[in-house]
């Protein structure tokens, strides 16, 4: 049963998840509540639709000349990196007199994960030399979008949550896993663990892959990232903290 008091406790954070502005720990807290609360899932869905409609108020402006051609050129370049589709013909020049309908190159989206953030980071680096940071925040934004897209399928095969426990078997946090494009894993530690940096790793039968560094203060903390492995292949999430503290979420029995 859902504790109705919990709905009130997450109401403010729920609104911020709807607007897309909630912090990572707030998003995780709301998500944990949503798993058991259909009323709040419906509330969030409705508020999200309202928040998205707010974006319509921005006035239109014509982009600079050559914008359309530049977009199509970028996409053609990205599409050409895919081994699954034939290389496209040269993209159109970004000129104002370019004939838009002349572009007939197949532009099939690639399915390799992570490729876009790297390309986007390169583009932004050309603007201000801040590509690495932008990469990090982009992942976080993608995660935020992932949370929202997850809501309709929470408890379905695309979404899963599991407890993180310490050596004594005491629960100290949650891990949330999402199977999609991209797939992602997000860990949240509560305020009972020692503050510091926790190295988060994903364990599959193929080995252990580092996932993220989770910064924890006295109120807890959270961190996550996209993963290349399919979620169902993940057997365990390991977290190694200050002084070698080991925490883990066991996923081997989940299916």
């Amino acid at each position: 049963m859902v504790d109705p008091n919990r709905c009130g406790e997450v109401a403010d954070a729920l609104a911020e998840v709807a607007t897309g502005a909630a912090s990572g720990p707030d998003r995780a807290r709301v998500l944990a509540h949503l798993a058991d609360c259909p009323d709040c899932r419906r509330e969030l869905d409705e508020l999200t639709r309202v928040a998205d409609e707010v974006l319509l108020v921005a006035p239109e402006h014509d982009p600079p000349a050559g914008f359309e051609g530049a977009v199509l050129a970028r996409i053609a370049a990205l599409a050409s990196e895919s081994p699954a589709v034939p290389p496209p013909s040269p993209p159109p020049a970004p000129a104002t007199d370019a004939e838009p309908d002349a572009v007939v190159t197949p532009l099939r989206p690639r399915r390799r994960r992570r490729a876009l953030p790297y390309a986007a980071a390169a583009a932004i680096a050309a603007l201000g030399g801040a590509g690495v940071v932008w990469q990090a925040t982009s992942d976080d934004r993608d995660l935020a979008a992932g949370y929202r897209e997850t809501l309709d399928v929470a408890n379905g095969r695309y979404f899963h949550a599991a407890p993180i426990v310490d050596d004594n078997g005491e629960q100290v946090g949650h891990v949330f896993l999402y199977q999609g494009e991209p797939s992602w894993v997000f860990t949240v530690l509560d305020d009972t663990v020692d503050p510091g940096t926790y190295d988060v790793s994903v364990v599959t039968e193929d080995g252990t892959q580092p996932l993220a560094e989770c910064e924890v203060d006295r109120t807890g903390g959270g961190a996550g990232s996209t993963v290349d492995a399919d979620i169902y292949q993940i057997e365990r999430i390991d977290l190694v903290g200050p002084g070698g503290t080991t925490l883990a979420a066991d996923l081997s029995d989940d299916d």
Partner: protein
Amino acid sequence: MSDEALLAGMAAGDADAMAAFVRRHQGRVYGLALSVVGVPAIAEEVAQEAFVRAWRHAGNYDARRAQASTWLLTITRNVAIDVLRVRRELTVEPAVVAEMLISTTNDSDRVADSERITTALRALPREQATAVLLSVHFGLTAREISEQQQIPLGTAKTRIRTGLSRLRAMLEVSHG
């Protein structure tokens, strides 16, 4: 051709569909990007990146959950906020921009389907409308809004939540 059909074409690799989609939405996407980042050259990069992401995720678009235009604008907003979080110098006065967004001086540049939400935002208490716009448009958390507006954190949270709830009620009424 509908947006949904164009997105289906984009997912299948149809370059003509992509070109038509860009042509149809570029003014709106660039306008949103410009309103967030404020610098034309950076807004152009943001808008380009938004279309690239739309192309990549066209196959995931679900018409039951959102209109194509709001789906695309959400992507655009996310890209723009990514840039803002790195380049703080771009954020001059979000509250001033928020005021301008619902100002009648922009009415000539509005798209027809924005009339309903614009009217609803104007009907809100000004401080609630500003809090909602700062949160939605600029991705500011309640804590950031409380600092920028010099109001208690609880007040900022309440303004966002109450503002959204009232907007929902007004939009439901206007839906009939």
